[in-house]
Protein backbone atom coordinates (compact mmCIF):
# COMPACT_ATOMS: atom_id res chain seq x y z
CA UNK A 1 0.00 0.00 0.00
CA UNK A 2 1.29 3.45 -0.93
CA UNK A 3 2.01 5.75 2.02
CA UNK A 4 1.43 9.46 2.16
CA UNK A 5 5.13 10.12 1.91
CA UNK A 6 5.28 8.46 -1.46
CA UNK A 7 2.45 10.51 -2.95
CA UNK A 8 4.68 13.35 -4.24
CA UNK A 9 7.03 10.85 -5.83
CA UNK A 10 4.10 9.11 -7.45
CA UNK A 11 2.70 12.34 -8.78
CA UNK A 12 6.12 13.43 -10.01
CA UNK A 13 6.56 10.15 -11.79
CA UNK A 14 3.12 10.40 -13.37
CA UNK A 15 3.80 14.00 -14.43
CA UNK A 16 7.09 12.98 -16.05
CA UNK A 17 5.27 10.28 -17.93
CA UNK A 18 2.43 12.57 -19.02
CA UNK A 19 2.18 13.37 -22.70
CA UNK A 20 2.54 17.03 -23.83
CA UNK A 21 -1.10 17.24 -24.86
CA UNK A 22 -2.20 16.20 -21.38
CA UNK A 23 0.18 18.69 -19.82
CA UNK A 24 -1.21 21.39 -22.09
CA UNK A 25 -4.75 20.50 -21.06
CA UNK A 26 -3.85 20.58 -17.37
CA UNK A 27 -2.09 23.93 -17.81
CA UNK A 28 -5.09 25.32 -19.67
CA UNK A 29 -7.37 24.11 -16.92
CA UNK A 30 -5.23 25.85 -14.31
CA UNK A 31 -5.26 29.08 -16.29
CA UNK A 32 -9.03 28.87 -16.65
CA UNK A 33 -9.59 28.18 -12.95
CA UNK A 34 -7.23 30.90 -11.72
CA UNK A 35 -8.60 33.29 -14.29
CA UNK A 36 -12.19 32.60 -13.28
CA UNK A 37 -11.27 33.06 -9.63
CA UNK A 38 -9.72 36.36 -10.65
CA UNK A 39 -13.05 37.52 -12.03
CA UNK A 40 -14.67 37.38 -8.60
CA UNK A 41 -14.29 40.26 -6.15
CA UNK A 42 -11.16 39.66 -4.11
CA UNK A 43 -10.30 41.36 -0.86
CA UNK A 44 -8.46 40.39 2.29
CA UNK A 45 -9.65 42.27 5.36
CA UNK A 46 -11.05 44.92 3.10
CA UNK A 47 -7.86 45.33 1.06
CA UNK A 48 -8.27 44.47 -2.64
CA UNK A 49 -5.95 41.67 -3.73
CA UNK A 50 -3.73 41.92 -6.76
CA UNK A 51 -4.33 39.06 -9.16
CA UNK A 52 -1.56 37.65 -11.35
CA UNK A 53 -1.55 37.43 -15.13
CA UNK A 54 -1.70 33.67 -15.14
CA UNK A 55 -1.99 33.55 -18.91
CA UNK A 56 1.45 35.16 -19.11
CA UNK A 57 2.79 32.41 -16.86
CA UNK A 58 1.36 29.88 -19.27
CA UNK A 59 2.85 31.76 -22.21
CA UNK A 60 6.32 31.75 -20.67
CA UNK A 61 6.02 28.15 -19.51
CA UNK A 62 4.71 26.82 -22.80
CA UNK A 63 7.14 29.01 -24.73
CA UNK A 64 10.03 27.04 -23.31
CA UNK A 65 8.78 24.07 -25.33
CA UNK A 66 8.92 25.96 -28.60
CA UNK A 67 6.29 27.02 -31.10
CA UNK A 68 3.11 24.95 -31.26
CA UNK A 69 -0.42 25.51 -32.48
CA UNK A 70 -2.05 24.36 -29.26
CA UNK A 71 -0.55 27.04 -27.02
CA UNK A 72 -1.08 29.70 -29.67
CA UNK A 73 -4.80 28.94 -29.94
CA UNK A 74 -5.23 28.66 -26.18
CA UNK A 75 -3.40 31.90 -25.48
CA UNK A 76 -5.52 33.76 -28.02
CA UNK A 77 -8.68 32.34 -26.45
CA UNK A 78 -7.49 33.25 -22.96
CA UNK A 79 -6.75 36.71 -24.25
CA UNK A 80 -10.30 37.11 -25.51
CA UNK A 81 -11.60 35.99 -22.13
CA UNK A 82 -9.44 38.62 -20.45
CA UNK A 83 -10.62 41.25 -22.92
CA UNK A 84 -14.16 40.69 -21.83
CA UNK A 85 -13.54 43.10 -18.96
CA UNK A 86 -13.17 46.38 -20.82
CA UNK A 87 -10.03 45.98 -22.90
CA UNK A 88 -10.15 46.21 -26.69
CA UNK A 89 -10.64 42.83 -28.25
CA UNK A 90 -7.31 41.21 -28.97
CA UNK A 91 -5.19 43.29 -26.65
CA UNK A 92 -4.55 40.62 -24.03
CA UNK A 93 -4.28 37.96 -26.73
CA UNK A 94 -1.60 40.00 -28.47
CA UNK A 95 0.31 40.41 -25.20
CA UNK A 96 0.02 36.70 -24.48
CA UNK A 97 1.12 35.76 -27.95
CA UNK A 98 4.09 38.15 -28.07
CA UNK A 99 5.20 36.96 -24.64
CA UNK A 100 4.90 33.41 -25.87
CA UNK A 101 7.02 34.25 -28.91
CA UNK A 102 9.59 36.00 -26.74
CA UNK A 103 9.74 32.99 -24.44
CA UNK A 104 10.27 30.73 -27.46
CA UNK A 105 13.09 32.89 -28.75
CA UNK A 106 14.69 33.21 -25.32
CA UNK A 107 14.46 29.50 -24.59
CA UNK A 108 16.00 28.55 -27.93
CA UNK A 109 18.68 31.20 -27.66
CA UNK A 110 19.74 30.47 -24.11
CA UNK A 111 18.80 26.82 -23.95
CA UNK A 112 22.39 25.80 -23.36
CA UNK A 113 22.40 27.86 -20.17
CA UNK A 114 19.30 26.19 -18.72
CA UNK A 115 21.23 24.88 -15.78
CA UNK A 116 22.56 28.30 -14.83
CA UNK A 117 20.76 31.25 -13.28
CA UNK A 118 19.47 32.28 -16.66
CA UNK A 119 16.92 29.49 -16.43
CA UNK A 120 15.22 31.40 -13.63
CA UNK A 121 15.95 34.98 -14.53
CA UNK A 122 14.99 34.85 -18.19
CA UNK A 123 11.41 33.74 -17.56
CA UNK A 124 11.07 36.62 -15.11
CA UNK A 125 12.30 38.96 -17.80
CA UNK A 126 9.77 37.45 -20.20
CA UNK A 127 7.03 37.97 -17.66
CA UNK A 128 8.13 41.56 -17.19
CA UNK A 129 8.04 42.04 -20.93
CA UNK A 130 4.55 40.57 -21.01
CA UNK A 131 3.26 42.92 -18.30
CA UNK A 132 5.00 45.82 -20.04
CA UNK A 133 3.20 44.83 -23.24
CA UNK A 134 -0.12 44.89 -21.45
CA UNK A 135 0.73 48.31 -20.05
CA UNK A 136 1.77 49.60 -23.48
CA UNK A 137 -1.31 48.28 -25.25
CA UNK A 138 -3.56 49.68 -22.54
CA UNK A 139 -1.85 53.05 -22.75
CA UNK A 140 -2.23 53.14 -26.52
CA UNK A 141 -5.86 52.06 -26.27
CA UNK A 142 -6.89 54.72 -23.75
CA UNK A 143 -4.70 57.42 -25.23
CA UNK A 144 -2.50 58.12 -22.21
CA UNK A 145 -0.02 56.31 -20.00
CA UNK A 146 -1.94 54.20 -17.50
CA UNK A 147 -0.82 53.85 -13.88
CA UNK A 148 2.35 51.84 -13.41
CA UNK A 149 1.97 50.84 -9.77
CA UNK A 150 -0.92 48.39 -10.25
CA UNK A 151 0.96 46.83 -13.13
CA UNK A 152 4.05 46.38 -11.01
CA UNK A 153 1.97 44.83 -8.25
CA UNK A 154 0.42 42.48 -10.77
CA UNK A 155 3.89 41.63 -12.08
CA UNK A 156 5.19 40.67 -8.65
CA UNK A 157 2.08 38.59 -8.01
CA UNK A 158 2.66 36.90 -11.37
CA UNK A 159 6.28 36.18 -10.49
CA UNK A 160 5.30 34.61 -7.16
CA UNK A 161 2.72 32.40 -8.82
CA UNK A 162 5.18 31.52 -11.58
CA UNK A 163 7.72 30.32 -9.04
CA UNK A 164 5.08 28.06 -7.52
CA UNK A 165 3.45 26.75 -10.66
CA UNK A 166 6.11 26.87 -13.37
CA UNK A 167 6.57 23.09 -13.57
CA UNK A 168 2.89 22.67 -14.40
CA UNK A 169 3.38 24.69 -17.59
CA UNK A 170 6.29 22.70 -18.86
CA UNK A 171 5.10 20.64 -21.78
CA UNK A 172 8.12 18.37 -21.45
CA UNK A 173 9.33 18.69 -25.02
CA UNK A 174 12.18 20.59 -26.54
CA UNK A 175 11.33 21.28 -30.14
CA UNK A 176 14.27 21.62 -32.47
CA UNK A 177 16.77 20.15 -30.01
CA UNK A 178 18.80 17.28 -31.28
CA UNK A 179 20.36 14.37 -29.48
CA UNK A 180 22.45 15.32 -26.46
CA UNK A 181 21.28 18.94 -26.41
CA UNK A 182 18.10 17.79 -24.72
CA UNK A 183 19.84 16.35 -21.70
Amino acid at each position, binding site marked *: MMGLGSVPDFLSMRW*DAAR*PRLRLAIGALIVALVG*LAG*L*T*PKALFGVPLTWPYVSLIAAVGWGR*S*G*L*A*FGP*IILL*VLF*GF*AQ*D*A*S*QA*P*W*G*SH*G*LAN*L*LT*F*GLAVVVSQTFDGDRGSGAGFELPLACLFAGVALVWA*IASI*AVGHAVRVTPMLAAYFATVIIYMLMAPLF*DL*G*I*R*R*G*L*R*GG*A*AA
Partner: protein
Amino acid sequence: MPRASGKGYKQRPLRRYGFFIAVAGLIALLLLQSSPRLRGQVEPIRTAASDQLYNVTRPNLVDRLTGAAGKDRQILELETRVRELAQYKALALTMAERLEVYEDILNMQGEPGGAEVTARIMAETNGPFAEALLANAGAANGVQEGYFAENDRGLVGRVVQVGQRSSRILKVTDFNSRVPVMGEASGLRAMMFGGRDGLGRLTDLPEQGQFLPNERILTSGEGGLYPRGVVVGTVLPYEDDDIRVNLEMLRGQLSYVRLKPAISIPRPEDFPVETEVAEVTDEAGQ
Protein backbone atom coordinates in the same frame (compact mmCIF):
# COMPACT_ATOMS: atom_id res chain seq x y z
CA MET B 1 13.01 14.89 -18.64
CA PRO B 2 12.33 16.90 -21.81
CA ARG B 3 11.86 15.04 -24.99
CA ALA B 4 13.60 16.01 -28.20
CA SER B 5 11.23 16.35 -31.10
CA GLY B 6 12.52 16.04 -34.61
CA LYS B 7 9.02 16.28 -36.10
CA GLY B 8 8.61 19.73 -34.66
CA TYR B 9 11.81 20.83 -36.30
CA LYS B 10 10.37 20.07 -39.73
CA GLN B 11 7.09 21.79 -38.98
CA ARG B 12 8.69 24.89 -37.49
CA PRO B 13 8.07 27.17 -40.53
CA LEU B 14 4.38 26.29 -40.50
CA ARG B 15 4.09 27.04 -36.78
CA ARG B 16 6.06 30.19 -37.27
CA TYR B 17 3.67 31.28 -39.99
CA GLY B 18 0.76 30.43 -37.77
CA PHE B 19 2.25 32.47 -34.97
CA PHE B 20 2.80 35.52 -37.09
CA ILE B 21 -0.62 35.21 -38.69
CA ALA B 22 -2.17 35.11 -35.23
CA VAL B 23 -0.18 38.15 -34.13
CA ALA B 24 -1.09 40.00 -37.30
CA GLY B 25 -4.72 39.07 -36.90
CA LEU B 26 -4.82 40.39 -33.36
CA ILE B 27 -3.11 43.61 -34.37
CA ALA B 28 -5.60 43.99 -37.21
CA LEU B 29 -8.43 43.40 -34.79
CA LEU B 30 -7.07 46.06 -32.48
CA LEU B 31 -6.70 48.51 -35.32
CA LEU B 32 -10.18 47.82 -36.59
CA GLN B 33 -11.56 48.73 -33.19
CA SER B 34 -10.16 52.21 -33.56
CA SER B 35 -13.19 52.79 -35.76
CA PRO B 36 -16.08 53.88 -33.53
CA ARG B 37 -18.57 52.30 -35.91
CA LEU B 38 -16.99 48.87 -35.70
CA ARG B 39 -16.43 49.22 -31.97
CA GLY B 40 -20.12 49.91 -31.56
CA GLN B 41 -20.92 46.71 -33.41
CA VAL B 42 -18.70 44.54 -31.21
CA GLU B 43 -19.84 46.08 -27.93
CA PRO B 44 -22.90 43.78 -27.69
CA ILE B 45 -20.50 40.83 -27.83
CA ARG B 46 -18.56 42.29 -24.95
CA THR B 47 -21.75 42.85 -23.02
CA ALA B 48 -22.85 39.27 -23.52
CA ALA B 49 -19.43 37.96 -22.58
CA SER B 50 -19.30 40.16 -19.52
CA ASP B 51 -22.71 38.93 -18.44
CA GLN B 52 -21.49 35.38 -18.60
CA LEU B 53 -18.06 35.92 -17.11
CA TYR B 54 -19.00 38.37 -14.40
CA ASN B 55 -22.22 36.82 -13.29
CA VAL B 56 -20.82 36.32 -9.81
CA THR B 57 -24.23 36.59 -8.26
CA ARG B 58 -25.17 33.21 -9.63
CA PRO B 59 -25.09 30.79 -6.71
CA ASN B 60 -22.58 28.01 -6.80
CA LEU B 61 -23.06 24.42 -5.71
CA VAL B 62 -21.90 25.00 -2.11
CA ASP B 63 -24.34 27.86 -1.67
CA ARG B 64 -27.17 25.74 -3.05
CA LEU B 65 -26.38 22.90 -0.65
CA THR B 66 -26.07 25.12 2.43
CA GLY B 67 -29.18 27.11 1.59
CA ALA B 68 -27.23 30.35 1.39
CA ALA B 69 -28.27 30.74 -2.21
CA GLY B 70 -31.93 31.16 -1.27
CA LYS B 71 -31.10 33.70 1.41
CA ASP B 72 -28.85 35.61 -0.95
CA ARG B 73 -31.58 35.64 -3.56
CA GLN B 74 -34.09 36.85 -0.98
CA ILE B 75 -31.72 39.56 0.17
CA LEU B 76 -31.25 40.67 -3.41
CA GLU B 77 -35.00 40.79 -3.96
CA LEU B 78 -35.51 42.77 -0.77
CA GLU B 79 -32.76 45.18 -1.68
CA THR B 80 -34.39 45.65 -5.06
CA ARG B 81 -37.73 46.33 -3.42
CA VAL B 82 -36.17 48.78 -0.99
CA ARG B 83 -34.64 50.66 -3.89
CA GLU B 84 -37.98 50.71 -5.69
CA LEU B 85 -39.82 51.89 -2.57
CA ALA B 86 -37.23 54.59 -2.00
CA GLN B 87 -37.98 55.86 -5.47
CA TYR B 88 -41.72 55.82 -4.73
CA LYS B 89 -41.12 57.64 -1.45
CA ALA B 90 -39.14 60.36 -3.17
CA LEU B 91 -41.88 60.59 -5.80
CA ALA B 92 -44.60 60.82 -3.13
CA LEU B 93 -42.77 63.60 -1.31
CA THR B 94 -42.36 65.50 -4.56
CA MET B 95 -46.04 65.05 -5.39
CA ALA B 96 -47.09 66.20 -1.92
CA GLU B 97 -45.02 69.34 -2.23
CA ARG B 98 -46.43 69.96 -5.69
CA LEU B 99 -49.99 69.43 -4.41
CA GLU B 100 -49.42 71.91 -1.63
CA VAL B 101 -48.19 74.49 -4.12
CA TYR B 102 -51.23 73.89 -6.33
CA GLU B 103 -53.58 74.26 -3.37
CA ASP B 104 -51.90 77.50 -2.42
CA ILE B 105 -52.25 78.75 -5.99
CA LEU B 106 -55.94 77.85 -6.05
CA ASN B 107 -56.45 79.14 -2.50
CA MET B 108 -58.05 75.82 -1.83
CA GLN B 109 -59.35 75.15 1.63
CA GLY B 110 -58.87 71.89 3.35
CA GLU B 111 -61.56 69.66 4.65
CA PRO B 112 -63.51 71.21 7.50
CA GLY B 113 -62.48 69.95 10.86
CA GLY B 114 -64.66 68.30 13.44
CA ALA B 115 -67.09 70.09 15.69
CA GLU B 116 -64.45 70.58 18.34
CA VAL B 117 -60.97 71.89 17.73
CA THR B 118 -58.00 72.05 20.00
CA ALA B 119 -56.00 75.15 19.24
CA ARG B 120 -52.76 76.56 20.46
CA ILE B 121 -52.76 80.07 21.80
CA MET B 122 -50.38 82.07 19.69
CA ALA B 123 -50.70 85.47 21.29
CA GLU B 124 -52.64 87.67 23.63
CA THR B 125 -53.69 90.67 21.60
CA ASN B 126 -53.69 94.18 22.88
CA GLY B 127 -56.04 95.62 20.30
CA PRO B 128 -59.60 96.70 20.82
CA PHE B 129 -60.07 93.80 23.11
CA ALA B 130 -57.79 94.06 26.01
CA GLU B 131 -58.59 90.58 27.14
CA ALA B 132 -58.42 88.52 24.01
CA LEU B 133 -56.46 85.52 22.82
CA LEU B 134 -55.36 84.52 19.34
CA ALA B 135 -55.67 80.82 18.56
CA ASN B 136 -54.12 79.03 15.60
CA ALA B 137 -57.36 77.50 14.37
CA GLY B 138 -59.78 79.21 12.07
CA ALA B 139 -62.40 78.63 9.45
CA ALA B 140 -60.13 76.19 7.67
CA ASN B 141 -60.37 74.04 10.75
CA GLY B 142 -64.10 74.38 11.06
CA VAL B 143 -64.11 77.07 13.72
CA GLN B 144 -67.00 79.47 13.46
CA GLU B 145 -67.82 82.70 15.15
CA GLY B 146 -69.66 82.03 18.39
CA TYR B 147 -67.66 78.97 19.36
CA PHE B 148 -66.76 79.03 23.03
CA ALA B 149 -63.35 78.18 24.40
CA GLU B 150 -62.48 76.30 27.53
CA ASN B 151 -59.30 74.98 29.01
CA ASP B 152 -58.73 72.15 31.41
CA ARG B 153 -60.37 74.02 34.28
CA GLY B 154 -63.27 75.97 32.84
CA LEU B 155 -64.65 78.55 30.48
CA VAL B 156 -62.08 80.80 28.80
CA GLY B 157 -64.14 82.92 26.44
CA ARG B 158 -65.91 83.08 23.13
CA VAL B 159 -64.74 83.29 19.53
CA VAL B 160 -65.56 86.72 18.21
CA GLN B 161 -63.51 86.78 15.02
CA VAL B 162 -62.58 83.97 12.72
CA GLY B 163 -59.85 84.00 10.13
CA GLN B 164 -58.83 81.24 7.77
CA ARG B 165 -56.25 79.83 10.13
CA SER B 166 -56.75 81.82 13.30
CA SER B 167 -59.49 82.97 15.58
CA ARG B 168 -59.78 85.65 18.21
CA ILE B 169 -61.21 84.67 21.58
CA LEU B 170 -62.77 87.23 23.87
CA LYS B 171 -61.91 86.14 27.36
CA VAL B 172 -64.50 86.13 30.08
CA THR B 173 -62.27 88.47 32.03
CA ASP B 174 -62.91 91.22 29.50
CA PHE B 175 -65.12 94.04 30.60
CA ASN B 176 -67.24 93.77 27.49
CA SER B 177 -67.90 90.07 27.79
CA ARG B 178 -71.26 88.94 29.04
CA VAL B 179 -71.79 85.39 30.20
CA PRO B 180 -75.18 84.12 31.36
CA VAL B 181 -74.41 82.17 34.51
CA MET B 182 -76.22 80.38 37.28
CA GLY B 183 -75.35 79.20 40.76
CA GLU B 184 -74.89 75.49 40.91
CA ALA B 185 -76.48 75.21 44.37
CA SER B 186 -78.80 78.18 44.50
CA GLY B 187 -79.93 78.02 40.90
CA LEU B 188 -79.97 81.79 40.69
CA ARG B 189 -79.31 83.41 37.34
CA ALA B 190 -77.16 86.40 36.56
CA MET B 191 -74.84 87.90 34.00
CA MET B 192 -71.12 87.91 34.49
CA PHE B 193 -68.59 90.31 33.03
CA GLY B 194 -64.88 90.72 33.55
CA GLY B 195 -63.46 93.06 36.11
CA ARG B 196 -60.17 94.84 35.97
CA ASP B 197 -58.78 92.78 38.80
CA GLY B 198 -58.98 89.52 36.92
CA LEU B 199 -62.13 88.45 38.67
CA GLY B 200 -65.63 88.09 37.33
CA ARG B 201 -68.46 90.34 38.40
CA LEU B 202 -72.07 89.28 38.63
CA THR B 203 -74.74 91.69 37.51
CA ASP B 204 -78.43 91.58 36.68
CA LEU B 205 -78.97 89.74 39.89
CA PRO B 206 -82.37 88.38 40.77
CA GLU B 207 -84.52 90.44 43.04
CA GLN B 208 -84.85 87.63 45.47
CA GLY B 209 -82.21 85.32 46.83
CA GLN B 210 -78.42 85.49 47.01
CA PHE B 211 -75.59 83.51 45.63
CA LEU B 212 -73.89 81.38 48.22
CA PRO B 213 -70.25 81.98 49.08
CA ASN B 214 -67.94 79.44 47.46
CA GLU B 215 -70.78 78.32 45.28
CA ARG B 216 -69.78 77.11 41.85
CA ILE B 217 -70.85 79.28 38.99
CA LEU B 218 -71.83 77.56 35.76
CA THR B 219 -73.05 78.78 32.45
CA SER B 220 -76.84 78.84 32.32
CA GLY B 221 -77.18 78.33 28.59
CA GLU B 222 -79.60 81.17 28.23
CA GLY B 223 -79.31 83.16 25.03
CA GLY B 224 -77.61 80.28 23.25
CA LEU B 225 -74.13 81.71 23.49
CA TYR B 226 -72.87 78.96 25.76
CA PRO B 227 -74.14 75.54 26.59
CA ARG B 228 -75.47 74.98 30.04
CA GLY B 229 -73.24 73.65 32.79
CA VAL B 230 -69.77 74.86 31.77
CA VAL B 231 -67.73 75.65 34.86
CA VAL B 232 -66.94 79.33 35.20
CA GLY B 233 -65.68 79.79 38.74
CA THR B 234 -66.65 80.07 42.37
CA VAL B 235 -68.31 82.89 44.28
CA LEU B 236 -65.97 84.74 46.59
CA PRO B 237 -67.13 85.94 49.99
CA TYR B 238 -69.06 89.16 49.70
CA GLU B 239 -67.32 92.50 49.99
CA ASP B 240 -69.39 95.60 49.63
CA ASP B 241 -72.17 95.05 47.14
CA ASP B 242 -70.12 93.35 44.47
CA ILE B 243 -70.41 89.64 43.93
CA ARG B 244 -67.08 88.53 42.60
CA VAL B 245 -66.29 85.28 40.95
CA ASN B 246 -62.94 83.57 41.13
CA LEU B 247 -62.46 82.30 37.60
CA GLU B 248 -61.44 78.67 37.27
CA MET B 249 -59.75 79.11 33.91
CA LEU B 250 -57.05 81.24 35.51
CA ARG B 251 -56.00 78.24 37.58
CA GLY B 252 -55.40 76.13 34.51
CA GLN B 253 -53.01 76.47 31.59
CA LEU B 254 -53.76 78.80 28.74
CA SER B 255 -51.40 77.42 26.15
CA TYR B 256 -54.07 75.31 24.53
CA VAL B 257 -57.83 75.76 24.45
CA ARG B 258 -60.63 73.63 23.22
CA LEU B 259 -62.95 75.41 20.82
CA LYS B 260 -66.48 74.04 20.89
CA PRO B 261 -69.62 75.01 19.03
CA ALA B 262 -72.22 76.91 20.96
CA ILE B 263 -75.63 75.42 21.37
CA SER B 264 -78.06 76.37 18.64
CA ILE B 265 -81.51 77.18 19.77
CA PRO B 266 -83.86 76.56 16.87
CA ARG B 267 -85.89 79.48 15.71
CA PRO B 268 -89.59 79.31 14.91
CA GLU B 269 -88.70 79.71 11.25
CA ASP B 270 -86.82 76.44 11.48
CA PHE B 271 -90.13 74.63 12.04
CA PRO B 272 -92.46 75.79 9.24
CA VAL B 273 -96.13 75.11 9.81
CA GLU B 274 -97.45 72.45 7.48
CA THR B 275 -100.36 74.42 6.12
CA GLU B 276 -101.73 71.61 3.95
CA VAL B 277 -102.08 69.32 6.94
CA ALA B 278 -103.75 72.09 8.90
CA GLU B 279 -106.21 72.70 6.09
CA VAL B 280 -107.05 69.03 5.82
CA THR B 281 -107.62 68.92 9.59
CA ASP B 282 -109.91 71.93 9.39
CA GLU B 283 -111.88 70.35 6.60
CA ALA B 284 -112.22 67.12 8.55
CA GLY B 285 -113.31 69.05 11.57
CA GLN B 286 -116.00 70.72 9.60
